[in-house]
């Protein structure tokens, strides 16, 4: 629960009433927002996302307890807006693996790897679909 040293303030410096402000004057996340706090060091394993297999069902987005799935809003063929998964926010992912569990593709588009595994290596060694004999 330790506050980073540079964020500590003296008694006469902070907002009264221990009030925190979510956004700064420009409407960006303020330094009071937990977006600026990292919980990455909670992880021992990380999820790796394989864009090539993903079907954009967004189950990982809805099930992530840490709001870590970065989405891009696109308009689909039928003119409806939809969210495509573009990546994982590794600053806030705690490595719970809920996303991997809920991923529905036959070969999962999310898999857990050791924290220090290189993502490109992980993607290179992704399980392959077994070819069925006719």
């Amino acid at each position, binding site marked *: 629960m330790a*506050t980073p040293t540079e964020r500590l303030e003296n008694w006469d410096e902070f907002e009264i009433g221990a009030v925190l402000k979510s956004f700064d004057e420009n409407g960006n996340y303020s330094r009071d927002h937990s977006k600026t706090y990292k919980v990455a060091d909670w992880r021992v394993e990380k999820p790796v996302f394989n864009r090539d297999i993903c079907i954009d069902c967004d189950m990982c987005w809805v099930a992530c307890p840490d709001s870590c799935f970065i989405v891009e809003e696109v308009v689909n063929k039928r003119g409806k807006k939809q969210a495509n998964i573009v990546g994982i926010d590794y600053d806030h992912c705690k490595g719970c693996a809920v996303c991997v569990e809920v991923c529905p593709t036959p070969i999962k588009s999310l898999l857990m790897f050791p924290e220090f595994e290189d993502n490109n290596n992980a993607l290179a060694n992704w399980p392959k679909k077994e070819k069925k004999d006719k």
Partner: protein
Amino acid sequence: MAEKYELKTKEVWDGNTAASHALRQAQVDVVAAYPITPSTPIVQNYSSYLADGYVDGEFVMVESEHSAMSACVGASAAGGRVATATSSQGYALMVEVLYQASGMRLPIVMTVVNRALASPLNIHGDHGDLYLGRDAGWIHLIANNPQEAYDMTLCAFKIAEDEDVRLPVTTNQDGFLVSHTAQIVEPLDDETAYKFVGDYKQKNPMLDFDHPVTYGAQTEEEWHFEHKARQHKALMDSPKVIEKVFAEFKELTGREYKLVESHNMEDAEVAIVAMGSNYETAKIAADEARKAGIKAGVVCPRSFRPFPIKEMAETLKNVKAIAALDRNCPMGTIGALHNEVAGAINAFGQNAIITGYIYGLGGRDTTVAHNLEVFKDLAMNAEAGKRVTPLQKFINLRGPELSFFKVGE
């Protein structure tokens, strides 16, 4: 817009009526309250003002005092003027949330009608509730009669909401002796009263949706101390604002209030320090004592928190003997007011003899005669040049004399 309430220049009001009119005139946005004797009439009066169109704020009739103060916190953090009223057990139930309100620096005003705390149950006046909230981080103003109950409530909003204060304030009046005793009160008309209080100035309102704020964060060991220290400083600095508001009020009404009130203190050799209705009684006793040759005076702190340490010492600098009268059973020490006064005079190098008296618990009568007895004790101490009476005595207690730290024991 709320209807204007036609008032006479002189009304016959008890303390409850006076306080409820002050709440009405301040055009409070949200009152959340729960009835309890002896402050119930404040809540009832406010309900009837609402029913008759004299109030256009919200009135939330909650299911407990705990929820009353909680709703006040929610409403105040949302960003508007908030008030409530309570007494005794209700105050006790609120205590947890009193600390939350002050820690969040929310300028809530609470009109307290002081009453004893059970057990045994008692509905009458003493300062048990006031003392319970002593360290809760609120400003506690003292009103000794219905006029003051009215005046202090109007001033309370202006003090609480000042940008240099932003702290909750209680106004205190004695249960029944002030709350239910009708006297002549000179109110301001609605417009003048509201103009004095002024429009509410928002600070970090939750309802400013473009600037979301978080209230009630968790501060652990690396932050809590700093937050509490800052809150303490706000209380310690608040007398400047209290005096400024009192000065404006004097300008408007001619009625003068000070951090420490006094009577006959110019040449007094002995003094009673008391809060509440007994200040009025002791003033009559002091006049009587002077007829008997005792140079008696009376002192009352107008604010119990922040305690006017310097002004108290200054007022008492020429006296030889002081009696501090606590209307609360200190349960194992001398008395909070005694200790405050003793600390104040000691801090400024004064060496008047000081003794403590416990009086008026659960509404027990304390008369002019009782106060005269205290002045006689003080005269004995003053003449002897040392304490010859017990350090702590009880006034008008049935049975053999109960006292502690008798001289020579």
